[in-house]
């Protein structure tokens, strides 16, 4: 810095101290960007864009009234915020509060159904529960029968009709006869279904419950999808859930999980808590469509992630490490120390392998998805065995998957200074961290028989042989490691500041992390108080992820969400199915991952669909958009009102002009619409759709 510029800086700082418009002056001084601050009028909007899933109508005024800093403090203490409204919305979703075992019993996975059908497990006595089992066993037997007949595909229940349509061309005479019979029973079922739809909700429900599983299946299949919706009309949430469970019990669990996430994101007052729960779930990602994770993920988010979202990182780490969902997803539950009792016995003949066997039965009793010879490495061993003609039960071994991702993705980061040897050592440390009866929704347990004996050496430190405590020691070590402090701080800064956050900020956050024993709230406080967070460079610097885009659009339009499944489907199309990220990396937070041709088209189409009220169960609130605004007298002011409501008025001249021009398109103003109110509504839909699909709205 030259003597002259330094003097200028001094003058500016003096001025800043003297003048109330300091930030403005600093913002204008080039080369001092990091000290420049976002315009006062945009502070509330910026804070809302970052700490929440987007502002709702009236939010900016509320935050300004409270004071931005005070509002941020409040968001950092979610326990002080009343969130009863969203809790009330979630009330009908019973699985959200269920423990996993109860969930498996109430909403049985296919393996359990099969076990009951084959007489290996008993049917529950509760009539509501047994109705679910009976329906599922009927469907299971029906599928098996269809397979045995060898016609059609072993597809999902309910695709009979489609099969009949496609398969007719090359049908045998027997199949034709069968198809004719099916057609007749379908006609009958259609008549049944029609009378059913005419009944009152209560009569309809009891009539359905009284049917035999076979009749019920036939009736439901006779209905078109939109008619099936009608079956549910007027029923209580419990009744709906009961019917859904009979059709697809596992679907109830995932639907409720997905819907609750969307409803919380849209309606929770504890927005930062939601944002952080989403952030940490993604950081410690599990894929909810993998085997037992179908019913383990609800508890994972509720019990392992959410309680620690603004707590201590080490607690979060421990909670995820010991949760069955993670143990299952990254295979640690089946990792066996090569020299453990189970490892030694399982690999060598019959002598004394009772214990290993007993353990295996836990996995296998219900024909678990993974076979015991499904282990990784140990290839040479298996080959030797196969050649020797031994029974096809190769030695089960160490599984490194969790140990690797624990260091690479959860704590140290890929360049965090660990080696392949450290991965193996950590994997040994964590042997025995397993699940009790994974297919029945069991909890974490430490199983000594799987645990690798002996001392281990992790990151240059000796870990003395100490059973389960070895793992706890290593997790604590990882949680307080400086590489972890930096890795976590950078990722948070990427979420809240920009895709490439300033290094100085990351360093200060990491320092807070180490000083506060990994207190997430304190690290965030450092972040929210930093000049980098409030820098004009940070304003709208982030491209929204599909989740952020969809939820922010719903929030800003004051939309009433009656059917959050519609939103879940939209996210699927946008490439971000909830709980649907297969690799352990979680979804990217960077713009490049989300800005591509198909995704952009889908965003525009979602925007138009939402604004014109074409999404099922999603009702945009036009009054909320027009609230407080003088009634638009002409197209110009209408565009201005909508832009004010949806983008806080910060819309580019080009976008505004384009929308204005669009309104003159005769195709949009059909002469058939004579009623001026309806015309205005239709125009409002167009304007809002274009604004929500505009480049400006893709950023936060």
């Amino acid at each position, binding site marked *: 810095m030259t003597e002259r510029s330094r003097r200028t800086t001094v003058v500016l700082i003096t001025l800043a101290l003297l003048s109330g418009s300091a930030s403005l002056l600093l913002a204008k001084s080039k080369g001092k960007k990091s000290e420049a601050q976002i315009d006062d009028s945009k502070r509330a909007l910026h804070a809302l864009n970052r700490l929440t899933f987007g502002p709702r109508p009236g939010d900016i005024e509320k935050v300004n009234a409270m004071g931005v800093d005070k509002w941020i403090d409040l968001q950092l203490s979610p326990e002080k915020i009343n969130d009863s409204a969203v809790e009330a919305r979630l009330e009908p979703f019973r699985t959200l509060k269920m423990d996993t075992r109860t969930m498996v019993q109430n909403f049985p996975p296919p393996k359990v159904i099969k076990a009951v059908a084959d007489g290996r497990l008993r049917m529950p006595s509760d009539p509501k529960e047994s109705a679910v089992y009976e329906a599922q066993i009927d469907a299971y037997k029906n599928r098996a029968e269809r397979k045995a007949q060898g016609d059609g595909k*072993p597809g999902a229940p309910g695709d009979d009709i489609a099969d009949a349509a496609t398969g007719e061309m090359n049908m045998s005479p027997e199949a034709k006869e069968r198809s004719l019979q099916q057609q007749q029973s379908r006609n009958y079922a259609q008549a049944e279904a029609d009378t059913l739809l005419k009944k009152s909700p209560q009569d309809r429900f009891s009539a359905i419950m009284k049917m035999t599983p076979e009749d019920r299946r036939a009736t439901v299949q006779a209905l078109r999808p939109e008619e099936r919706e009608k079956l549910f009309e007027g029923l209580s949430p419990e009744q709906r859930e009961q019917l859904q469970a009979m059709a697809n019990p596992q679907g109830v669990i995932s639907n409720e999980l997905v819907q609750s996430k969307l409803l919380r994101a849209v309606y929770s007052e504890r927005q930062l808590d939601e944002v952080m729960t989403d952030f940490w779930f993604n950081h410690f990602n599990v894929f909810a469509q993998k085997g037992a994770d179908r019913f383990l993920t609800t508890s994972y988010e509720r019990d392992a992630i959410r309680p620690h979202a603004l707590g201590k990182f080490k607690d979060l780490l421990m909670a995820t490490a010991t949760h069955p969902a993670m143990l299952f997803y990254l295979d640690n539950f089946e990792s066996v120390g090569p020299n453990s009792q189970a490892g030694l016995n399982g690999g060598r003949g019959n002598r004394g392998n009772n214990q290993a066997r007993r353990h295996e039965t836990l996995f296998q009793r219900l024909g678990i998805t993974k*076979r015991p010879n499904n282990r*990784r490495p140990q290839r040479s061993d298996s080959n030797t065995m196969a050649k020797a003609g031994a029974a*096809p039960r190769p030695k089960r071994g160490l599984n490194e*998957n969790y140990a690797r991702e624990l260091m690479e993705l959860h704590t140290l980061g890929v360049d965090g200074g660990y080696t392949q040897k450290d991965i193996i050592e950590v994997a040994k440390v964590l042997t025995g961290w397993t699940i009790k009866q994974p297919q029945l929704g069991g909890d974490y347990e430490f199983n000594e028989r799987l645990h690798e004996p002996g001392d281990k050496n992790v990151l240059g430190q000796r870990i003395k042989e100490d059973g389960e405590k070895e793992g706890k020691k290593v997790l604590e070590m990882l949680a307080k490691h400086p590489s972890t402090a930096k890795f976590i701080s950078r990722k948070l800064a990427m979420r809240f500041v920009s895709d490439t956050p300033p290094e100085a900020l990351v360093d200060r956050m990491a320092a807070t992390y180490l000083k506060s024993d990994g207190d997430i709230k304190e690290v965030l406080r450092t972040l929210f108080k930093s000049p980098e967070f409030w820098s004009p460079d940070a304003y709208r610097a982030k491209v929204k992820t599909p989740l952020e885009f969809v939820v922010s659009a719903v929030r800003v339009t004051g939309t009433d969400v009656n059917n959050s499944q519609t939103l879940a489907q939209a996210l699927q199309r946008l490439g971000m199915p909830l709980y649907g990220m297969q690799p352990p990396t979680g979804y990217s937070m960077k713009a490049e991952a989300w800005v*591509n041709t198909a995704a952009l088209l889908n965003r525009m189409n979602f925007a138009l669909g939402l604004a014109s009220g074409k999404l099922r169960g999603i009702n945009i609130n036009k009054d909320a958009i027009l609230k407080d605004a003088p009634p638009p007298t002409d197209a110009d002011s209408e565009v201005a009102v909508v832009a004010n409501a949806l983008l806080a008025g910060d819309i580019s001249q080009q976008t505004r002009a384009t929308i204005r021009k669009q309104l003159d398109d005769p195709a949009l103003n059909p002469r058939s619409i004579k009623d001026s109110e309806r015309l205005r509504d239709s125009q409002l839909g167009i304007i809002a759709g274009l604004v929500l699909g505009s480049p400006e709205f893709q950023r936060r």
Partner: protein
Amino acid sequence: MAVTRRVFLKNSALAVVGTTAIPSFLTRAAFADVNGGGKKRMVVLFQRGAADGLNIVVPHGEPTYYQMRPTIAIPRASVIDLDGLFGLHPSMAAFKPLWDSKQLAIIHASGSPDNSRSHFDAQDYMESGTPGVKSTEDGWLNRALQTEVQHHESANKVSPFKAVALGTALPRTLAGSYPAVAISNINEFGVGGRAAGPAAGGLSNSFESMYAQSVDSVLHGTGQETFEAVKMLKSADPARYTPAAGANYPRGRFGDSLRQVAQLLKADLGVEVAFADIGGWDHHVNEGSTQGQIANLTREFSQAIAAFWTDIGDLGADTVLVTMSEFGRTARENGSRGTDHGHANVMFVLGGPVKGGKVYGRWPGLDSRHLYEGRDLEVTTDFRTVLGEGLSRHMGNRQLATVFPGFSPESKLLNFIR
């Protein structure tokens, strides 16, 4: 000549900016110019659910095969013999002419070296191209595009349809930093869809002009590509498509997918890699033999591919199609007249540059001494060797070490591509 082309291209690319009225044939011509003329194509097909390779390309010359599969083996009399040892399932008659014309090669006993028998993990490893490594973020085909020789792209123009997957979501195989597009129905690729009615065109133009004029560098660029893509597709008029004579696609999603891939290829939109998949191969119970589940599915599979090949006609000369499945099935049938999760499988490679009419790879045999873990066909050809040969010999990729980290197929290539 090349220079003139490039100048034309640059000019037309510039012309797209800021105007909505560029005639569609011009944008098409621009991309056709980059991507036509010697541009190679690769089509990747995934059979999800672990197809039973032993009942698809049947080792009918091995007596053990018949001993191991008393009820589901394909009788020797029904097999379409290929070379005395192997033969096709009778439902796959559509493949025979492709074999006879030496465009179709078979790689038997191929697959992933990882011994996972979980559909989930095995598909994941195969699509990422990194068996045993879970945290690989991108797919092998995306890395192949990332590392491609960039000579044509020096004109800084890439077709938005260069990498296409048929389906609602981008498959793991194509996921990654290289732009790839998932299309479930090419007739609905646009703004507003059918629902928007007459206003759709205007809305599309409005969005286009918003993005074209935006100062947002990231969104501006992608917005421009997006609307070029929409127009290119529209000019190809996919709704009025008629497949070539003799291309009889079977009904169903897989046939629809391949028909749409053919449409995109024939419209000359610059498709370089395409992906589609077909599910339903997990035949634990009542797999069937010459009739039944396996027969129905192999019929759909082979007819769709054969129809596709007929449909694309001359374009086949520069196209290589490869099929894969996460693992094979047990050599022995199980107690439910089906097969369980196994190890090695069979891959098909079809194309103009393919030295077909031959079964490649070392056949390990079904003798129990040679079975993997005492139960499954052994993998003697790593699937990456097959894909690697397609990428290097056909697509000209020179960075296989990046596409398949930790694996070097170069020394083991089977030479099935000319």
